[in-house]
């Protein structure tokens, strides 16, 4: 019962870690380059989720100053602000890697890592 309570209280951290591990697994094991990029995005989501949930305050309000209601409890806005930067970074990484994939598809005619490796091996053998 104690364990169950622990899990429920920390469900956001467990979920974030699970996303991180799923993303890492996708990046490392899949040979399809697009799936690897998706894996990076899942990993990023995991980390961002973790970071944002650190800033949560139970019963807190969104951190927008409400002049009429006086002193409310606000959640910590700093992690959310930082993660906005993180999201922008992952967006740009995704765009750049997708454009690389476009180039790879043009030159090799495939987006599968194993087949690309075969083509490269064949070429070095021909040399």
């Amino acid at each position, binding site marked *: 019962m104690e364990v169950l309570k622990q899990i429920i209280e920390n469900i956001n951290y467990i979920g974030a870690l699970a996303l991180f591990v799923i993303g890492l697994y996708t990046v490392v094991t899949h040979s399809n380059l697009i799936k690897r990029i998706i894996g990076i995005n899942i990993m990023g989501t995991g980390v961002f989720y973790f970071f944002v949930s650190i800033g949560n305050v139970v019963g807190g309000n969104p951190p*927008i100053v409400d*002049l009429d209601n006086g002193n409310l409890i606000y959640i910590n806005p700093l992690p959310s602000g930082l993660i906005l930067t993180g999201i922008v970074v992952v967006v740009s990484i995704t765009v750049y890697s997708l454009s690389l994939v*476009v180039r790879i598809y043009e030159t090799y005619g495939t987006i599968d890592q194993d087949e690309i490796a075969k083509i490269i091996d064949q070429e070095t053998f021909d040399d």
Partner: protein
Amino acid sequence: MDDIILRTISRLIIPFIEIYGVFIILHGHVSPGGGFSGGAILGTSLILYTLVFGVEKAQKKFSHKVSDIAESGGILWFILIGLVGIFVTGYFLTNINAGFPIGEPGLLLSAGMIPLLMIGIGIKVASTMITLFHTVIEEAHHGSA
């Protein structure tokens, strides 16, 4: 893509998308949103235009010349505002102490330099989104030809 429904509808809604983007940019300091979100919405409007009317027509609306200036200009504007802080108080990006008017909290004209920064960020993000989309499309056309 030559479809009369798409063309009519997108012609109708693109102005509203753009106004919404500008609204989000300008209200970044008093409500959720800001330069990045607003710029992304602004960029989306031209991406929709590109999808419906094709790259050639979109390039006329937003050519590489304009995007070069907008992209560099957005950051240069940010840096310029930051430098004001150095000259007045001795710290880069100083807000109130550098003499930016603080205004009344909750109104549109408040928070010192933050709305000014948001405009720069918005321009930068919007032009980056559009340029990225156009570049990828052009490269794909170029590659298949």
